[in-house]
Structure formats: C-alpha cells, structure tokens
C-alpha cells in the first residue's frame, strides 16, 4: 500500500506540550513513578509471593480452574451418570469414560471407569459447564505434580478422593443439585 492511497486514514499525533518539548519535566515525572514503586516494594508492598515458603492467595476458589474432582451425592455415591457430555465437550479429548449399568434404582448408567489425563487437560472448564448433574468440577488446587505420565492419569478413585479433600473448603456449586454456591 502506498502512502497516498485513499483508503488510508491518517491520524495526527497529539502535539507535544511545553513539558514534552522541554524533556526534563516528563523525565522527572517518570523518575518519580519509578521511585514510588521502589519505595513501595522496599516497604513490603510487593505483589509476588515467595511461593514454596508462602502459599499464594487464590482470589475466588469457586471459579479457579485447577485439578478436577468427581462429586458424590448425599449417600456417598458418585454423582456422575455417564452421559458422556463432558467427554464430548472436552476440546483436548482428555476424558475417558466407560459406562456400565447402574446398580442403583434412581439412574440408568454410572461410570465404571472415569479417567482424566491431567497432562492433556487444558483446564478450560468446559466439562464443568457441560455436566448436567454437576458431577465433575474444577477445584482450586494448583500445585499438580507427578513423577510419571501414568501418575497423572487421574482415575475415578483419585478424582473422588480429591472431592473428599476439598469438599469442606469448596462446596458443590449448583444449589439446585444440593450444592451451596452460585
């Protein structure tokens, strides 16, 4: 495209004021900002934390997207009805469910096996959105580590144990289904 092309809309730069022309006032202004931030940091006002020594504060654990959990109902059974909506919604294809006939009278199916590959997961939260019974949820656990790839394949037991570990701090989300939070 050439500079005299009629399709170009030319925008004029704002004119420099006297302070800008003199350089020095703006320089002093910039230096003051730098100074203020340094004084603040030296006074302890830093925004970062020394992570392993000090746990970071998560703003709202209810909307943080960390490790998954599989919720249980009041009788301690897995809530999941093996409808495959989460596995379908998952853009990373990291959920693997094997459905079986339910041993309980109130539903038809339940997951015989429910595996999430935490290494493949992109923590988008689509499974949580898709679930009709609020069975799969993302917790605020962020420090997810493992020594092997196999260890990072979270199966049903492990996902249920994550629920046991976090149920007190993070209640289930939908009030219509026994959850407390919105």
């Amino acid at each position, binding site marked *: 495209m050439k500079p005299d092309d009629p399709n170009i809309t*030319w925008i004029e730069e704002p004119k*420099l004021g006297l302070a*800008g*022309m003199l350089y020095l006032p703006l320089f002093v202004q910039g230096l003051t900002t730098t100074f203020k*931030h*340094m004084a603040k*940091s030296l006074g302890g006002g*830093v*925004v*970062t934390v020394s992570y392993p020594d000090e746990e970071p504060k998560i703003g709202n654990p209810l909307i943080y997207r960390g490790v998954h959990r599989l919720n249980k109902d009041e009788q301690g059974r897995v809530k999941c009805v093996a409808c495959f909506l989460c596995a379908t919604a998952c853009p990373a294809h990291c959920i693997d469910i094997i459905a079986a006939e339910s041993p309980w009278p109130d539903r038809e199916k339940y997951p015989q096996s429910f595996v999430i590959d935490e290494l493949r997961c992109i923590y988008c939260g689509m499974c949580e959105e898709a679930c009709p019974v609020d069975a799969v949820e993302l917790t605020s656990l962020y420090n997810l580590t493992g020594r092997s790839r196999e260890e990072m394949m979270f199966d049903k037991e492990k996902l249920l144990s994550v629920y046991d570990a976090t149920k007190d701090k993070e209640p289930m989300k939908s009030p219509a289904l026994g959850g407390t939070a919105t």
Partner: protein
Amino acid sequence: MTQLLLETGIKIAIILGGMMTAAAYFVLLERRMAAWVQDRIGPNRVGIPGTKVRLFGLGQPLADGIKFILKENYTPAHVNHALYAIAPVVILTAALTTFVVIPMGSLIPHFKVGVPQVGVVDSGHNVEMIAAPGIDVGLILIFALSSIAVYGVILGGWSSNNKYSFLGGLRSSAQLIAYELPLSLGILGVVLAAGSLDIDTITKAQAVQGWYGILQPLGFIVFLIAAFAEASRLPFDLPEAEQELIGGYHTEYAGMKLLLFLVAEFLHMIAASFLIVQLFLGGWHLPFITGDLDNEKITWFTAALRIGVLQAKIFGVIVFFMLVRWSWPRFRFDQLMSLAWKIMLPLGILNLVAVAVVQEFTKPETLNGKVIAIAVGWIVLVAGWLCMALSNPLVTDNRPRRDLSLAEVDAQI
C-alpha cells in the same frame, strides 16, 4: 624499585579483583532494583551453598559465575574463528585498562611496602590510589581505550556471521562514535577550567573552584547523557535491543565469552560513573569534611573518609543509572542520531564557549569569580535548553511524508 613494583602490583590486583567483584554484584543489584521497581521481590534465595542461610541473595553472583564457567564453550561453525575469539578479549581488556588512570580515592599517608634495606633510612612515601600515578594525559587515554572497545563490538558482530549480530555491531559502532563527540565536549569544559587532563588534578581543582557539576551544568548534562550512550545503557541500549536484534552483537556467543561481554558492559558503566563523579561531582571532595588539600597533611582518617565519600558518590550515580533504566523507553535509531548531532553537539559547543569566556574574564578562585561562573553556567543552561527544545522538538512520527507525492519521494531516494 621493588617498592614501586610491589605497590603497583598490589594496586592492580585490588583494582582487578575489586572491579570484577563490583561488576558481579552490580548485576545482582540491578536485578533486585528491577524487581523492586516492578513491585516484585527479586533474586533473594542464593546464600551460602549447602546451608539454608540466604543472606538476601548475596550468593547469586557466585552461582551465576559458576553457571557461566560450567557451560559448554560452544562455537558455531559459521563464524570467523580468530576474530570471534578475539572480540570479547578486546572489549574486556579495553574496559579494564580504563581503570589504570582512574583514581580510586586520594592518597594513603606515609606507608612502606617491600623488604627493609639495611642502612637505608626510608620512611616511605604517600601512596597515590591510582594504578599508574603521574600520567598527565589520563583522560585522553580513557578516550583512546573506549574507542578500542568499539572494535570489540564490531569484531564480535562481524565475526559472528549473523545478520542480527552484524546489525547490532553496526548500530553500536555508529552510536558509540556519534556520542564520543558530545562526551569529549562535555569533558573539554572541565579540562579548560581545571587546566589539566589528569583526573586527580581535576578533583583538586574542584575542591578549590567548586564542583563542575554546579559551575557547568550544561556540560554536566551533556556529559551525563553521552556517558549513558557510551555505556549502552537504557534509553540508549540499541545495540542489543532484544525485541529487534535478539541479543545484538553477542547473539552467537555463549559461556565464558558471553560473560566477558556482559562484564565489560558493566565495567563501562562503572567507569562512566567514576568519570561522572570525578569530573563533575567533586570526586572524593566533600566541603568541610574531607580535609586539607596539602598532600603532606593527610592522615589515615581523611584518606579513609575520602575513599568512602568517593565510593558513596559512585554508588549513588550507579543507582541513578539503574533507576533511569526503568523510567524511560528506548530511543529509536533516528532519534538517537538526531539527539547526538542536532542537540548534544551544539549544546556541548555552547558550554565550551561559555566556559572559555568565563575563564578568560574571571578568577575562579575568588568568591566573585565563582558567583559569576555559576550564574553564567546556569543562564547558559536554561537559554541553550529552551532554544534547543523549542527549535528542535523530538520527532516521534516516522511515517512517510504525505506532503510529497510518490514521484518526489522516489526522486529524493
């Protein structure tokens, strides 16, 4: 003779060790200050190895050094091997040799080193805290050496056989050569007022006449800005603008060779701070505190005090260097060049003329002369600055000109 050799050897060892350590710790200081300015904590974890003692991260330079030494000394296949190896050596040698003529303090009183000789009464003599005392062209030597440092940059950029390195080296050489001029003009005013090229003499002249930073503020500002450019510090760090040039002239370097480049850069900054302090901020001199100018009357106490004052001033200047880094964005190359040639050069000449006129018609030692000199200096600063700012505003628009038709643009090219 033995005494002289020993003395010089000790001085060189102290300067070499001290400067390398200082450069290493200034890297840490720079990282901490960067962190503070950005509301972070910064590197504070490396302390004594093997223990949990952290010492505010004071072990970090050591860890960095070990890392650099243990790294593979990798040489890419496409480089010009001889020049590739020489470049970091040239730049480091030039940076370190500069300190030969820079005094690290004032004098140490009667002091005797060496084997006592039987039958010879030798009470020793005052030891000057400079590696090569009595060189009366110190400033010229510094300029010569800083010009040699440009060769290191060009060699590094060219021998790497890489477009980014080459462009970085090219930019750097253009920048350093352009800013030598305002740098020398800033110094010329000082040399004219002090009547000497020896840094120690200039410091003493400031003790008598007043600090040149106050007497010649325009020269001070010109020199300060040029020193920033010479040390390739932000806002003048174009040679290694990461966003445009990856690493600049040292893109192809790794391990110890890279370390030499980085250390040389910090040594340049330290040398620049030394010059700023000793030429414009009075060196070791602080009114009423740092004692008599007569060399024979110096005591250990004043000697130590002078060293302390000098180092404190230099530390302050370096902190200023580091603060400026986070206050100002980088210049564009055409802005850099127009600043050097259209603004700094005329201002430097103006300062030189003003100093020459003041020197001709007043006596700088008298109170009257001082007042006149200060008044003239500040009036010239304000007038020159206003004149430059209003007639030559910073150009920020680099788009093609619309008032020219394409045929005219082609004709210009």
